[in-house]
């Protein structure tokens, strides 16, 4: 990495503010950089995985991409929600940027002459959308869920519903994250002193509703409208399903059996 290159951004703070609610929010350049830096870095590492000679350039190229594209006045404003998802725009732009940089280096190596490696050939060398894109989308989804849960936790604390967060965390989050069975109903009731099924059900149902509401609010910061938000959630679900072929196979077998 060039020692003169000062980092333009710091690693994003995941508990950061989410001030806006609509697509226009993405035109706030610094917010975009802070929020998506992690996912972009993961994606770039994937892009360069097959080019060991360029791996050391990753940090510089990411900084340059942020400076020349994201922070450049007018670039984000061109983003059109009608032309596709925002995260796809970031991915394709970074990919094109890296292709351009690699092309420049190849040309420079040959004293300014045209690169021996033809442009389309070079572009083909960059791996396709999978699995490089998967690493980006995983990082994106992790960031999305972390933000959602952080907001939910804050919301529960602010509305004096800390028990809702705790119950959701105990019954849903910890089992999902630790890969264990959720604590059974009796245990949950005893642990939280829930006096009736109505109380237990309402607490868990409230937690689920809050999760869904915050998830939509976080997505609404880069996708506009209910339809687009719904489509984003569906696409993330499809993406996860593709990463779990075994589970899908089991589901298909179950569906065929019924």
């Amino acid at each position, binding site marked *: 990495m060039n020692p003169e290159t000062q980092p333009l951004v710091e690693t994003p703070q*995941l508990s950061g503010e989410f001030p806006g609610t609509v697509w226009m929010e993405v035109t706030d350049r610094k917010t975009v950089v802070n929020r998506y830096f992690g996912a972009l870095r993961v994606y770039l590492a994937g892009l360069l995985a097959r080019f060991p000679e360029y791996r050391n350039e990753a940090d510089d190229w990411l900084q340059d991409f942020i400076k020349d594209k994201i922070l450049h006045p007018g670039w984000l404003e061109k983003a059109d929600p009608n032309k596709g998802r925002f995260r796809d725009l970031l991915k394709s732009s970074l990919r094109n940027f890296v292709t351009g940089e690699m092309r420049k280096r190849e040309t420079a190596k040959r004293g300014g002459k045209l690169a021996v490696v033809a442009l389309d050939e070079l572009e083909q060398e960059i791996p396709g959308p999978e699995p490089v894109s998967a690493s980006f989308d*995983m990082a994106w*989804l*992790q960031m999305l*869920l*972390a933000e959602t*849960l*952080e907001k939910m*936790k804050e919301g529960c604390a602010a509305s004096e519903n800390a028990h809702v967060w*705790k119950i959701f*965390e*105990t019954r*849903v*989050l*910890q*089992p*999902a*994250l630790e*890969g264990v069975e959720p604590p*059974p*109903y*009796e245990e949950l*009731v005893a*642990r*939280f002193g*829930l*006096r*009736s*099924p*109505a*109380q*237990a*059900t309402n607490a*868990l*149902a409230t937690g*689920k*509703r809050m*999760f*869904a509401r915050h*998830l939509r609010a976080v997505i609404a910061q880069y996708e506009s409208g209910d339809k687009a938000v719904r489509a984003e*959630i569906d696409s*993330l*679900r499809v993406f*996860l*399903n593709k*990463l*779990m072929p075994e*589970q899908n196979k089991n589901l298909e077998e179950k569906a065929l059996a019924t």
Partner: protein
Amino acid sequence: MNSADRDDPDTTQTIFLSGPKSLARILAQDQAEAALWEPQEMRAVWQHQMRAPIEADLAPIGSSPQEAAEFSDKSFSEVLHHANPPVALLKSIKNFAKQMIKDAEDSQLKEIAAALYYTSYAAGITRHGQRLGGMSDPELRGGFEWALGRVWLDEKTKNLIEEAMKAMESPGE
């Protein structure tokens, strides 16, 4: 100390170490139609309802009859299986259950409420020879049969309902 009691500010940060299966389980919480409890947990939910103190459910809706004051610290099970429960209290339980069927958004809670509703009717018929409301014979019989079909309903309650069905068949006895 169990994991729920720990003040663990990093729970959400664990997301960044999680794979697709974990993320899918969390993302699935967005689907409103997913059941809250596992089918095998319905027995525990019903048992919880039966051992819950009646005032926990009836007091918030202002449905604790004064003539049943001595029962205020009893559980649903103690009232419904009592040899001589106050009719007013049985009616309060029935009304509470009816309200829960109407208001609950969760289908599993509605099922629990429906079972409670028919059980209160059964207690009224067996202990006092009285109908707690205006349900017709076919409606009541259908409801009792539905309740008897719930695998999670306890034997004692099933016996109470069967007794009520017999009483309906031979009202003169």
